[in-house]
């Protein structure tokens, strides 16, 4: 469980990247959405303990991340969008780095490399961006840490590799693990998400399990926009709308649509609907 309490982070020049964010993030795979400059990477770095909050706190399983104790750090890892490894090959890096993480699984690592069609002996610096990313993903998903933070993990991956990544995430994520995926391409890992975290201009708009959101709102595609739609946008031949879920049945969430809705003037109405109490049937 990640607990964020009135978290604020401001850069030296005065820009506030995260402003008074409070949330509890349960184990599972969570999608982190936000526009460019919303503070997604900053939030991930704060959770990882790479940055110190200007105010508030971040805890992982009750441990304050800013203290950077080894016993806490071995449970957390963040894969940024680019990383330089101090080894020629990913296997070499795994050999020197994994001994700090007692939950690392060599078997899982081998399986991940095989799924990505890599041997692990490729010269890392001579690989393309996509292959480097696959090598790193194969390794970090085998670390088995309690909190794994992925910043644009599908960046540079081809279509098949994205499918492989989706399956790999599902296979490698245990019931007690928390994985937060920051991405702009929501469709790649759509079926995986247990939770949605939404940031906009440094403000945390939403941090909820997807089942809770799906209980309250529906994402529908209709030939004409529903009269009671909270938000509508025109798609190819249909109108995509966000409506209140009055049927109390879970609906499939369209993350891209929900993102657009929360970026629009309908934000408050949608958030009120999501945060409303479930009415007694």
């Amino acid at each position, binding site marked *: 469980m990640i607990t964020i309490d009135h978290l604020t982070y401001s850069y030296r020049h005065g820009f506030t990247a995260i402003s008074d964010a409070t949330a509890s993030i349960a184990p599972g795979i969570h999608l982190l959405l936000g526009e460019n400059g919303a503070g997604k990477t900053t939030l991930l770095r704060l959770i990882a*303990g*790479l940055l110190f909050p200007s105010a508030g706190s971040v805890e992982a399983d009750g441990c304050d991340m800013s203290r950077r*104790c080894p016993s806490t*750090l071995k449970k957390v890892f963040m894969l940024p969008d680019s*990383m330089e*490894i101090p080894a020629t090959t990913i296997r070499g890096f795994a*050999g020197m780095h994994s001994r*700090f993480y007692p939950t690392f699984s060599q078997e899982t690592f081998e399986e991940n490399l095989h799924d990505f069609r890599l041997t692990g002996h490729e010269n890392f610096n001579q690989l393309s961006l996509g292959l480097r990313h696959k090598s790193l993903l194969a390794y970090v998903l085998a670390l088995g840490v309690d909190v794994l933070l992925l910043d644009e993990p599908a960046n540079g991956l081809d279509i098949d590799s994205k499918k492989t990544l989706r399956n790999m995430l599902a296979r490698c994520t245990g019931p007690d693990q928390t994985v937060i995926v920051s991405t702009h391409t929501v469709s790649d890992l759509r079926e995986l998400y247990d939770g949605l975290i939404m940031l906009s201009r440094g403000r945390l708009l939403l941090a909820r399990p997807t089942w809770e959101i799906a209980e309250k709102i529906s994402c529908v595609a209709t030939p004409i926009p529903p009269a009671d739609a909270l938000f509508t946008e025109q798609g190819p031949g249909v109108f995509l709308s966000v409506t209140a879920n009055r049927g109390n049945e879970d609906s499939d969430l369209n993350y891209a649509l929900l993102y657009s809705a929360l970026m629009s003037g309908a934000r408050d109405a949608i958030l009120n609907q999501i945060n409303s109490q479930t009415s007694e049937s």
Partner: protein
Amino acid sequence: MDTIATLNDKFSWRRCLSIGLLYKKSIIYYLSGSAAVSLLCVLLVELVNHSGGNVMATYSLTSLLVAAAFYFSPIMFARRDDTIMTLLPVKTSEKLVFYLLLVLVVTPAVIESIWYGLNLIFSMINKDWDLTKVVSAYLSDSGTNLGDENECQLKISQVIAGCIQAFALIITGLYVVLRSTLHRVVKSMSSVLGMIFFILIMAGVTGGVIAVAKMSIDTDPTELSAIIVEEMMPYMIVMWGAMLIYGLFMTYRIYRLLATRQAKN
């Protein structure tokens, strides 16, 4: 595959030394290079001595190269990813001890053991060979009459000064290489060179002022060197003290840097 068994947050030597795995390539390259420099320098001095050449000039040049290997050792840590290093499950004190161990103990040990080890081997092969005696003989031949007491004082002070100076210079390079995000090698080496120039200027100004002061009084020119050394000693002690304090302060700064580093990219 072995994992580090120490799961608690107490200081662990095993975990401390394991940090070296992440710098393995750089460390091997640098120590190998330093050892090679030290070896070549000793061989060069021996070769020049054997062929009757100018040993002192060769010694001075090779000393510079060996000193460079000493002082630039922090560049071993230039190639790193700050995200990986900050996330690494090790204590700040373990990181500090590791860095200090490498640059203040291991690297000097490698360089000095080759330098003095080979000198010992050559002196065993050639009974008349001793680099220290060669240097002393040069000083006597050049008319630098320091007097027995001052010569002894100078030798002791050279050892102490050398250690303190090396500590201050290496710590400066270490701080800069750990703090910088770009151009770490250039910045670290530049900071060391900057410190060297500062020390030289301070020593030169001090010696120059004393020399001018003494020359203005009726002083026997043949005794001027000894008088300068004697007069400079208190100032040198103050300077060494200041360098020691500076080195300790920079060590503390490095600790704070490691503890509070924010890896923004």
